[in-house]
């Protein structure tokens, strides 16, 4: 049977149903916002050496579309934008501040029959060479301006901090911490703390963490039970972001947020719509990424997961009909 005459491969199913008009209109809103703030748009290659990702990212190897090219080298369809942009910055032999934006697809193999797309349309920005509070503030301002221009009703903007997690890791010295925090697994945390015999303020903090998610007041209360300078510093950086936020009402804080990549070092940002089961936006500070290219350059960025965003917007329309 000539199936190809009427079937599309499973990898393509979701991509075929994207609402292109809506996608392009959101894209042009983001593009003009990024442009007006001095962000240069990049067109990045679709093919990359698989090693580029394997060395740097935690992705499951099986999740990339890989081929052997004419030279016998393993190449892959672009699995992410941040790493190729870091390479481009490194190749520019500069340590000046650079502002880049991008729009395009990343390709990741998904579990079969899970209804997740293999072609993920992203749009985002990277701010390289600007560290600390100033860089964080510029990034946050763009996150908020873009969320407003897209017009998501009832959004949530969630902050976490990689430094907070890495410091806890140092204090606890046990790989299970990552899983417990990521799952907010309260019962496991209890038996973990008991087993490890933690005492004092560390014990109190660990037991509270799984239920610590909340608004600015909840975050500030956590400071009362913490006596570690680095942990407190991380919280203060989050509070500094709240202070300059124009979406204070929508901002929530998650001290259990676990950095998904090793190169994250500071503030982590996620954006949500009430109508989506996943984050519509994610990003964070990644001062360690350029160190893979033997360079010390601070950087921060975020991207919209446009497939997820489009789905959320169409569900929102349905709900309001």
């Amino acid at each position: 049977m000539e199936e190809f005459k009427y079937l599309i491969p499973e990898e393509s199913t979701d991509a075929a149903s994207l609402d292109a008009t809506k996608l392009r209109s959101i894209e042009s809103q983001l593009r003009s916002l990024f442009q007006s703030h001095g962000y240069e748009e990049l067109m990045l290659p679709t093919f990359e050496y698989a090693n580029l990702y394997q060395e740097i990212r935690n992705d499951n190897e099986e999740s990339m579309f890989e081929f052997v090219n004419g030279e016998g080298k393993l190449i892959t369809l672009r699995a992410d934008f941040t790493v190729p942009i870091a390479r481009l910055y490194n190749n520019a032999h500069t340590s000046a501040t650079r502002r880049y934006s991008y729009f395009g697809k990343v390709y990741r193999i998904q579990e079969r029959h899970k209804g997740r797309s293999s072609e993920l349309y992203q749009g985002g920005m990277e701010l390289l060479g600007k560290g600390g509070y100033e860089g964080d503030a510029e990034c946050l301002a763009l996150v908020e301006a873009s969320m407003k221009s897209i017009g998501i009703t009832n959004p949530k903007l969630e902050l976490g901090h990689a430094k907070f997690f890495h410091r806890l890791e140092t204090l606890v010295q046990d790989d299970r911490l990552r899983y417990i925090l990521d799952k907010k697994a309260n019962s496991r945390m209890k038996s973990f703390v008991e087993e490890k015999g933690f005492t004092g303020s560390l014990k109190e903090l660990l037991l509270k963490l799984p239920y610590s998610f909340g608004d600015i007041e909840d975050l500030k209360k956590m400071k009362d039970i913490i006596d570690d300078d680095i942990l407190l510093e991380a919280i203060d950086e989050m509070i500094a972001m709240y202070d300059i936020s124009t979406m204070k009402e929508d901002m929530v804080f998650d001290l259990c947020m676990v950095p998904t990549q090793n190169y994250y070092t500071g503030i982590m940002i996620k954006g949500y719509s009430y109508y989506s089961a996943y984050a519509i936006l994610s990003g964070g500070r990644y001062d360690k990424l350029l160190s893979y290219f033997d360079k010390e350059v601070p950087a921060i960025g975020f991207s919209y997961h446009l497939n997820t965003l489009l789905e959320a917007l169409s569900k929102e329309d349905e709900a309001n009909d």
Partner: protein
Amino acid sequence: MIKIAITKGRIEKQVCQLLAKQGFDMDPIFHKDRELLIETKDGIQMIFAKSNDVLTFLEHGIVDVGFVGSDTLMESDYDDYYEMLDLEIGKCFFALCAYPEYKEKHFERRKKIASKYTKVAKEYFARQREDVEIIKLEGSVELGPVVGLSDAIVDIVETGSTLKANGLEVIDKVADVSTRMVVNKVSYKYKRDEIFKLINALKGEE
């Protein structure tokens, strides 16, 4: 309104009884007939599903909260949820089971292991640094050794009576299993207080 998917059968019964004890209105659920979706006076909407489907509904954001056995969580590839409470009910365990001779027997070939939980079995043997052949069976996994399809099985043990009746025994414990409350990550951002209320009730706190 909080939407819950709950594993049909024993987990459904035990969790609903716990909630009823804490003053939740569970009558419509205790008296349900064949409805698959029920709404209670406390603003709970509950659907009843097979364990794997509970996770599917949670993953797609159809429900905010799910009640499943940790066996289902371990076997599933989906892990983007919060596992907020171990209810410590429905306790049982995963075990490697075989005829008693298995322990002494020296295998020169790859062992054959039958299981409904192929991922759990695979991970268990990977931890043991053993390369085995895993054969998926859908039910009555004990048949594997009995009919000579496999050398051993990895399965859930509750009372152990089926094992015993067929001459099999527990060779090694693989992992504990109990009922868990899992939460969709985005739902938690929007419905924290309602979810807390449920957690506290299930913990037996006000």
